[in-house]
C-alpha cells in the first residue's frame, strides 16, 4: 500500500542517520574550541527550535514564551543539584516532566485564546516567571546560581575543557527532537495537530479533540525544551534569570524554525545551521568594534532571508517540503 510514502519516510530516516553520523565525526577533525562551541550551540538551538516547532509549527499555537520552559528546565536541574545533590541526569528528567506539567496547567486556560491573544499570553507568562525567579532569594534571585565545578565527571556531566561530551549530548538531543518529530509526523497526533492548525472547526467534525491535541503538543514541546535548558545549565554552569528566561530567548528559539520552514521536519535544523553560526560569527568578528555594525549585518540578513523565502529556506530544497 502506498509505496512511495513508506519509501519517503524511510529515506528521511536514512538521510537523518547519515547526517547524524557525519556530524558525529566532525569534532574528530575540528578541534578548535570556538568552532566546537558554535556547533554545540547550533545543535542546541536546532533541538530547541525543533521542539518549539511541535507546538507552534505543527499545532499552530504560536508561543513566544518558550523561554519559560527553557529557564525552568535549567533552574530545576541546577537547584536540585546545588541544593539537594541530585545528579543532573535525574534533574534533567525532573525538569522535563515538571515543565510538561506546567505547560498543561497553563494550556488549560490559555488554549481558549486565539492568535495574538495567545502569543501575548505566552510572553507575559514567561515574563512573570522571570520576575518571580528574579525576586526569589532561595533560587539565587538576580545573582543566579553557579554549578560548582569539580573536575571532569560523567556522573555530574562536567568537563573542564573538553567539549566533546557536550557536543555529543547536544547532537543526541537534536537527534531525539528530530526523531520525535519524525515519528509524530506520521502518527495520530501529527495529523491531529496539523488539522487543528489549519481548521479547528473541521478538525472537530472529524473526531479530533482539539483541546487534547493542543495539550499533547504543549507537553511534548515543553518537555524537550526543558531538557535543552538543563543541558544549557550544565554546559554554561551558571544561570541567572535574565540569560535563561528572557524574552529574547523565546524569539531565538522560534527564529530557526521560521527561517528554515515553520511546521516542517527539516526547517528548524536547517534554520539553526544557518542562523547560529551567523549570529556567533557576526558578533565575534565584527562586534568588537562597538559600533553596532554586527547588529546591522545580522539584522539585515534576517530580514533578507525572511523576505526572500517567506515559506522558509527549506523551500530551496523541495517544494513539497515547504508546504507539508
Amino acid at each position, binding site marked *: *500500500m502506498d509505496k512511495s510514502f513508506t519509501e519517503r519516510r524511510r529515506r528521511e530516516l536514512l538521510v537523518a542517520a547519515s547526517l547524524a553520523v557525519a556530524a558525529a565525526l566532525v569534532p574528530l577533525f575540528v578541534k578548535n574550541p570556538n568552532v566546537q562551541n558554535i556547533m554545540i550551540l547550533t545543535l542546541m538551538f536546532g533541538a530547541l527550535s525543533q521542539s518549539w516547532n511541535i507546538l507552534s509549527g505543527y499545532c499552530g499555537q504560536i508561543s513566544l514564551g518558550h523561554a519559560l520552559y527553557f529557564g525552568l528546565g535549567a533552574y530545576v536541574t541546577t537547584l536540585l543539584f546545588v541544593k539537594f545533590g541530585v545528579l543532573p541526569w535525574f534533574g534533567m528528567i525532573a525538569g522535563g516532566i515538571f515543565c510538561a506539567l506546567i505547560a498543561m496547567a497553563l494550556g488549560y486556560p490559555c488554549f481558549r485564546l486565539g492568535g495574538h491573544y495567545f502569543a501575548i499570553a505566552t510572553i507575559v507568562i514567561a515574563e512573570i516567571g522571570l520576575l518571580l525567579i528574579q525576586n526569589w532569594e532561595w533560587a539565587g534571585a538576580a545573582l543566579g546560581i553557579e554549578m560548582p565545578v569539580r573536575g571532569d565527571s560523567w556522573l555530574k556531566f562536567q568537563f573542564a575543557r573538553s567539549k566533546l561530551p557536550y557536543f555529543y549530548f547536544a547532537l543526541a538531543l537534536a537527534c531525539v527532537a528530530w526523531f520525535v518529530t519524525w515519528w509524530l509526523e506520521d502518527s495520530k497526533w501529527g*495529523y491531529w495537530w*496539523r488539522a487543528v492548525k489549519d481548521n479547528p472547526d473541521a478538525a*472537530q*467534525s*472529524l473526531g479530533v479533540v482539539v483541546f487534547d491535541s493542543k495539550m499533547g503538543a504543549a507537553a511534548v514541546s515543553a518537555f524537550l525544551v526543558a531538557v535543552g535548558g538543563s543541558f544549557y545549565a550544565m554546559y554554561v554552569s551558571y544561570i541567572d534569570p535574565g540569560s535563561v528566561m528572557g524574552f529574547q530567548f523565546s524569539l531565538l528559539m522560534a527564529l530557526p524554525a521560521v527561517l528554515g520552514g515553520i*511546521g516542517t521536519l527539516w526547517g528548524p535544523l536547517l534554520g539553526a545551521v544557518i542562523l547560529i553560526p551567523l549570529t556567533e560569527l557576526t558578533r565575534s568578528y565584527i562586534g568588537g568594534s562597538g559600533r553596532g555594525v554586527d547588529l546591522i549585518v545580522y539584522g539585515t540578513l534576517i530580514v533578507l532571508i525572511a523576505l526572500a523565502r517567506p515559506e522558509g529556506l527549506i523551500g530551496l530544497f523541495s517544494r513539497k517540503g515547504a*508546504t507539508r
Partner: protein
Amino acid sequence: MTALLETRGVWQRFGGLVANSDVSISVGRGEIVGLIGPNGAGKSTLFNLIAGVLPPTQGSIWFDGEDVTKMPAAERCQRGVGRTFQVVKSFETMSVIDNVIVGALVRNTVMREARRKAHEVLEFTGLAARADVLASDLVPAEKRRLEVARALATEPKLLLLDEVLTGLTPTEAQTGVALVRKVRETGITVLMVEHVMEIVMPLVDRAIVLDLGKVLVEGKPADVVRDPKVISAYLGDRHAQSA
C-alpha cells in the same frame, strides 16, 4: 427499531433572530432524506446543531438511541455523525490524502490502516488521482468532493451533506447522484441539503422542507414539490408549471 436521528423541539436563536424554531424531524436507518428550503431557512444551522458545533438554545437531539444534545462535536463524530461544510473547510496546507487520513483516524488507530482506508475512500469518491495535491490547489468542486471523502473516512452511520452537488454540470451531477446511492448501499444513512431539484428529487426517499426555521412540509418528494406552500416559498412559478 428507533430512528437513527431525531431532533425534538429544537430551537436556535442568534440574538433576536430565530434560525430554527421547534424543529422536530427524524431520520430512519438507511434512508436518504432531503432537507430543502429557502436560503436562510436554517438548514445549515440545523446541521450544525446535529453535528454539535453549537448546543441548541432549546430542545434535544437524539442519535442512535442516545441523547447527544450536550455532546461535543468530536465525540459525535466518534459515535457516527459525519458532516460536510457548506462553506468548505479543507486543511489547506495538507495534501488531499492527509486531509482524508485525519478523518480515517477516528476508527483506525494504526497509521497504516488509516492510510489504507483513506486511499480506499479516495478511490470511492474519484479523487485518487489528486491524492498528493495540496488541498489549497483544488478547485471548488474538488474541494466539495474532498469534504465528502473526509466525512466518509470517519465511517459514519449518518452522513450530513450540505450542498455538495452544486456547481456541477448535469452530467457531472449524475455521477454525484450515483455516488450518494453507492454511499447508501454501504449502509450509511444520508441527510442532504441541496437546492437543485433535478438532483434531489430522484435521489431522496423523503423530503423535509424548512421555512423560516420551521418544518413546513414533510413527505414523498413527488408530493412535496406539488405542495403549493412549497412552491410559493421555495420553488417558484417555473416549478409549479413543470410539476
